[in-house]
């Protein structure tokens, strides 16, 4: 059996136990090496702790160690015989919304930590809103520090109900709840005898078995052309292939495809890789297509099915998470990168700023500051071939780049029917 990959993000407020949980997962799945453990042991002792502080295992850079907080997305890896896991470890500070948005953008699943002694806080709501906005398909709410509330089922149920009530207002993901103690390892890797009342499995069991294959859009064929391969030498003098990574749908040789922006149709004659022809391609495969007709095709173009095309538009409405040092203002000009296409864009309108705690829409907002989220209209210099983000995260997501500093200053989720808009 081949192993697949599950990418997940972690979200929680400071001190909810996020680092301890990630450390525990790595430790109990035997992904921690002795030299890493030795280093952590030394630091723990130096700080006067009487047992190893698992949180230190995931503490990255020196600045963070000195401040004792996690300040940037860090990636961790572990594997069990069932799956390989990639963790985007994202911090919970108010000012670091951008990190969570970043980590969640590629996540199949997110773990939201709630401290059992504190219940659902404002921050927990913010995490839920962001994860919903980023379209993370599965959410696991870990009610942590159950040891401090006597492993009480009542506390767990109360938190579960409160979270469920709030989450009902958001675009539905699949939400599951697990009562844990990251510190003691209860229900993290194995089911805990302390909480026989918990009907589900351990967190790790959940991570190993959650079904993710159908989370990708396999219906709407989307092939953004990334690079044109023309060897112009030797055996391949006449070879012309269109390379790219499938962003949606499935594709077989013989399929008819529509080319955008030309609107011409042609047929796929072969799907090439160095390892030989592919019988059927699906996301996220990187392949090279050969086509029956000689159409002028370049990077930034899109191939789709004749009767199932994305919208072709220069007016794009999106939910923007702003990440720039300077606020985003209406009328300002930006560079937008969408699939393999880059264009310039002008901010036409900021419709409202979303309060991620109350879901209130502030229509009087004049600017969007760092870590704020709002609904924005852009006018772009060339048409984008896009889908609502809720339908396809790859053809519905854009990044915004500041033309003066070259910094990535925003992430946008294209809205449309069905999304959070």
């Amino acid at each position: 059996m081949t192993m697949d990959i599950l990418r997940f993000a972690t979200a929680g407020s400071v001190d909810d136990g996020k680092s301890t949980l990630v450390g525990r997962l790595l430790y109990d799945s035997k992904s921690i090496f002795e030299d890493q453990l030795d280093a952590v042991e030394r630091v723990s002792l130096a700080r006067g702790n009487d047992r190893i502080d698992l949180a230190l295992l995931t503490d990255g850079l020196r600045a963070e160690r000195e401040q004792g907080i996690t300040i940037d997305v860090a990636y961790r890896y572990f594997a069990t015989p069932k799956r390989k896991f990639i963790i985007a470890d994202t911090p919970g500070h108010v000012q670091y919304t951008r990190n969570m948005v970043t980590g969640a953008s590629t996540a199949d699943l997110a773990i939201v930590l709630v401290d059992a002694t504190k219940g659902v806080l404002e921050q927990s709501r913010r995490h839920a809103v962001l994860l919903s906005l980023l379209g993370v398909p599965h959410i696991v709410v870990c009610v942590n520090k159950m040891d401090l509330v006597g492993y009480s089922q009542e506390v767990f149920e109360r938190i579960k109900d409160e979270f469920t009530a709030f989450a009902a207002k958001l675009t539905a993901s699949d939400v599951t709840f697990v009562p844990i103690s990251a510190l003691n390892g209860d229900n993290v890797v194995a089911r805990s005898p302390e909480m026989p009342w918990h009907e589900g499995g351990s967190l790790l069991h959940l991570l190993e078995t959650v079904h993710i294959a159908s989370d990708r859009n396999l219906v709407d064929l989307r092939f953004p052309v990334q690079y044109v391969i023309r060897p112009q030498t030797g055996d391949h003098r006449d070879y012309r292939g269109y390379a790219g990574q499938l962003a949606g749908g499935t594709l077989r040789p013989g399929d008819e495809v529509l080319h955008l922006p030309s609107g011409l149709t042609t047929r796929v004659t072969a799907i090439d890789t160095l390892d030989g022809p592919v019988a059927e391609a699906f996301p996220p495969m990187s392949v090279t297509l050969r086509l029956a007709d000689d159409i002028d095709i370049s990077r930034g173009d899109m191939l789709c099915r004749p009767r199932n095309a994305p919208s072709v538009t220069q007016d794009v409405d999106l939910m923007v998470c702003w990440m720039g040092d300077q606020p985003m203002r209406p009328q300002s000009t930006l560079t937008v990168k969408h699939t393999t296409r880059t264009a310039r864009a002008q901010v036409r309108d900021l419709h409202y700023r979303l309060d991620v705690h109350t879901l209130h829409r502030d229509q009087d907002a004049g600017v969007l500051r760092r870590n704020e989220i709002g609904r924005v209209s852009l006018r772009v210099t060339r048409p984008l071939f896009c889908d609502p983000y809720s339908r396809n995260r790859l053809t519905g997501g854009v990044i915004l780049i500041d033309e003066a500093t070259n910094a990535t200053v925003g992430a946008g989720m294209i809205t449309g029917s069905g999304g959070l808009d």
Partner: protein
Amino acid sequence: MDYQLGQLDALESEAIHVFREVAAEFERPALLFSGGKDSIVLLRLAEKAFWPAPIPFPAVHVDTGHNFPEVLDFRDRRVDELGMRLVVGSVQASIDAGRVAEPGGRWPSRNRLQTTTLLDTIAEHRFDAVFGGARRDEDKARAKERVFSFRDEFGQWDPKNQRPELWNLFNTRIRKGEHIRVFPLSNWTELDVWQYIERERLEVPSIYFAHARRVFERDGMLLAENPYLSPGPDEPVYRTTVRFRTVGDMTCTGAVSSAASDVDSIIKEIAVARTTERGATRADDRASEAAMEDRKREGYF
């Protein structure tokens, strides 16, 4: 058909996407090729990304002058096979030119000097994107590195001011004199690399496999007898069976006792290994807990 890619296929596809993105958006990319296992995988992925066209950029090697000869041989052969141009940046030349000073002491490693030679080579050839084989699982500081990692005009990395990376969209904008380090293997682990080497039947330098070698022990590390470092009176040289988990300089790359003589047995060995490849075998990373972070800020690989 379950439409789910296996782990190696998913990692491969992601890396190929990165290679093509760079080729499409940069003018003068280059690929750092040390002859080590990670850069071997890197080259294979580059080959796949552009096939049937040749790889559209040169390979760059920063030669410390203290490399294992087996690895240099391998490097030359592989680059030849692929018909690539090889650019060599020489640390010896940097020393001779007075750009850097040869360190002394018990650990006279040229490792840190490589940064200057690397940055000089990048500047001389005006490379604007440089592929490296670093993986995030190697080190805590690496865990935060972006796939497209921005370097300022001094080649410096600023870990607190990195560009956020969302979905599979990469910001490739730079000004003249700046460059991007690109890490297509960011999400690979040591085990993934070896499994890929096995699956693709890739050749690796012989020093990765168990062989008889004259070694001596220094500060708990097993070093190859070599022309650049003399063992002390209390450091007897003896012959034993070892292999290397990373290929760096002969002066700072430790060997591990191992009988693993093929890729399959290396995979088995790593699957149960209890130390990281760096902790076990790299003197350069043991200097302090933040050693890698400090070197990376200066512009190291």
